[in-house]
């Protein structure tokens, strides 16, 4: 009886605060959902408020606590015992036989369940009610430039496979985060896109450099392993120097190779091939090869290099690799140059500024015959410039040219 009544008073004082706590918690959860942030703080705050409310209700309940005499008195009235229980408790008379009836108190379900249901309703509404449509539009992960995710995934992949040192990937992530912090409306501004492109380009360059270095080092080790018996000391020294260059290349720059592997490479001395453990050399070679392949796979998955090779000049809607480099290499790119057409010689009088007067098959006009002499003097005069004007052009021709340029 005492327990029930005391719990009843506790519930009486606690239930309004419980409902208030749950309502506040629900409101906070709803607001945090609207802001698209973690709702855990709201739950913790709500739980804390409930605990404080319970403590307050306990202290208030103490004022209303039912004492033993009152409890026995209520039982006496409920069981029609005419205060025999109270008297017996006070030592007057014998304890009466207790009836089979339950304790003469009943719980009002509405008072008990009402606050609980109301509070639960607030929480359910906060958690399950769909957000307004305008809130859905602010799903920023879908709106950010796709390269951000790509670069972030590449950094995660490189970290996960332990291919590179984490400093570079962490720096990349920090730079991406800086870009994300910009207002959403600036995400597609030229400056942001250019910054993204710079990140992408830098990542690609660094990755390719490291990948090539690992490939070449692997091949060097393979060569050293297979030809250790035929290599002369001079050759071994040259290979050791090249290995030294590769080590420096892999240990510097934006992306640095895994330090463990790099340390193992530092211990390799190709001038002492006969003393080296062949299995260790092969394992190192394999690891370098695998790392290079893994890095290539990661770059391809991120779209930084393509499956069928990556050549400049292939434009398209993805902007491609940029304009073709006009190099003097023996193999040209696939860029198809426009065939130059000269002006008909019969209409030379109608020529305007910029018109092509003549097309001639000739060598590039570089001074191939010019040779340097001691003290910086020129041994031969060469065949262009003032010399050509003075020696090869006739006075009539000079006149026409002067007229033309005038």
């Amino acid at each position, binding site marked *: 009886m005492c327990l*029930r*009544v005391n719990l*009843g*008073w506790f*519930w*009486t004082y606690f*239930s309004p605060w419980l409902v208030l706590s749950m309502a506040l918690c629900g409101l906070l959860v709803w607001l945090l959902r609207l802001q698209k942030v973690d709702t855990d703080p709201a739950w913790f705050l709500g739980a804390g408020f409930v605990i404080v409310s319970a403590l307050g209700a306990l202290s208030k309940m103490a004022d*209303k606590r*039912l004492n033993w*005499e*009152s409890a026995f*008195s*209520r039982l*006496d*009235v*409920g069981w029609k015992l*005419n*205060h*025999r229980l*109270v*008297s017996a408790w*006070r*030592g*007057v*008379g014998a304890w009466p036989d207790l009836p089979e009836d*339950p304790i*003469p*108190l*009943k*719980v*009002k379900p509405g*008072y*008990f369940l009402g606050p609980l249901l109301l509070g639960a309703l607030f929480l359910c509404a906060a958690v399950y009610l769909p957000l307004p449509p305008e809130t859905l539009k602010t799903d920023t992960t879908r709106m950010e430039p796709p390269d951000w995710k790509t670069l972030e995934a590449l950094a995660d992949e490189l970290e996960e496979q332990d291919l590179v040192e984490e400093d570079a990937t962490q720096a990349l992530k920090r730079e991406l985060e800086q870009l994300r912090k910009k207002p959403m409306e600036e995400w597609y501004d030229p400056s942001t896109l250019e910054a993204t492109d710079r990140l992408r380009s830098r990542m690609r360059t660094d990755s390719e450099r490291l990948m090539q270095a690992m490939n070449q080092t692997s091949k060097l080790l393979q060569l050293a392993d297979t030809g250790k018996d035929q290599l002369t000391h001079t050759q071994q020294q040259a290979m050791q120097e090249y290995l030294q260059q590769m080590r420096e290349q892999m240990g510097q720059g934006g992306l640095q190779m895994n330090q463990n592997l790099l340390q193992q490479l530092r211990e390799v001395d190709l001038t002492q091939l006969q003393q080296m453990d062949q299995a260790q050399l092969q394992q190192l070679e394999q690891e370098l090869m695998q790392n290079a392949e893994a890095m290539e796979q990661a770059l391809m998955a991120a779209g930084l290099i393509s499956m069928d090779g990556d050549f400049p000049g292939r434009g398209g809607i993805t902007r491609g690799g940029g304009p073709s480099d006009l190099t003097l290499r023996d193999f040209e790119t696939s860029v198809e140059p426009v065939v130059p057409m000269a002006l008909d010689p019969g209409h030379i009088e109608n020529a305007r500024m910029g018109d092509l007067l003549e097309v001639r098959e000739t060598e590039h006009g570089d001074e191939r015959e010019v040779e340097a002499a001691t003290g910086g003097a020129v041994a031969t005069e060469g065949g262009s410039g003032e010399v050509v004007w003075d020696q090869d052009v006739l006075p009539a021709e000079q006149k026409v040219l002067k007229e033309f340029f005038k």
Partner: protein
Amino acid sequence: MNTEALTEIELKATSEKLAQVRSELNQVLFGQEPLIDQVVICLLARGHLLLEGLPGLGKTELVRALSKVLGLESKRIQFTPDLLPGDITGNPMLQDVDGERKFIFQPGPLFSQLVLADEINRASPKTQSALLEAMQEHRVTSMGERHALPEPFFVLATQNPIELEGTYPLPEAQLDRFLFKLNIHAGGAAVLQRIVENRQLGEEAKGAEILKPQELQEVMQLVKRIYLPEVVANYIARLVHASHKGESEASKSIKYGASPRAAIGLAAAGRARALMQGRENVSYEDIKAVAVPVLQHRLVLEYHAKLEGLDGSKVATALVEEVPAHADKLPPVLAES
């Protein structure tokens, strides 16, 4: 006061004796069982009784039957406007004793164990007040000498609610001396038929002596040993307190509430009822059963309440209904089943 709890044997024997007393009285006064119970309770609580009812309802018969059943000496005083205090208390008479003339006190009709003060409101206030000392202190004072009344001493007064011309309503101080005020109502046709069949005009009431005065005194001592739980005492206090202005809804009809003497009377009457029912403790039910007879004549009603047709009995009933037995409330989430 002997606070030792009653034994089962004492309780059983006493309650059986009291049941016989009530049964014997019911043979005299038909159809008035609740009234007889209240009268017995009042006597066991050492209280005086004020009976109000129309003539011919058996008030005098009740007193005579009580005196026979309880073995008490009884006297009847018919109160009239010219009755003087000395007529009921007794007067000093000048007498010749051994050659000397002395005032010798001649006891009046008050010197009896059971006094029926018939139509008490017809006597003058002076005479009514002569009863005060006798009822409160069980003694009378004449020419500076105190004379103790026989024990036990009970006053059963009657008053007629009609024919109020030429009467003197009892003052509040006098009314407060009566533990109970009971109203006698006529029984139904069946009760009247029983009376007609069993009684003759002018025939004296019959009744066997169940208790001797000494035994009655012992029973009254047992009443004092009945246990009054703290919660019941608290209920009595709250009930009496609620009769005061502004302390309850019912008190709006009350000008002056009940006195502490009423609270003491409630406890005593509750104890007597518990003993009569064979219990060693008082309960809420005992207090509720005696609350109206104890309180109704002690409440001074407002003028507007009288105009609305309320009387002490109705207001006291409203008080009992209004004041909860338990001092502490239940929380809203719980209810008594």
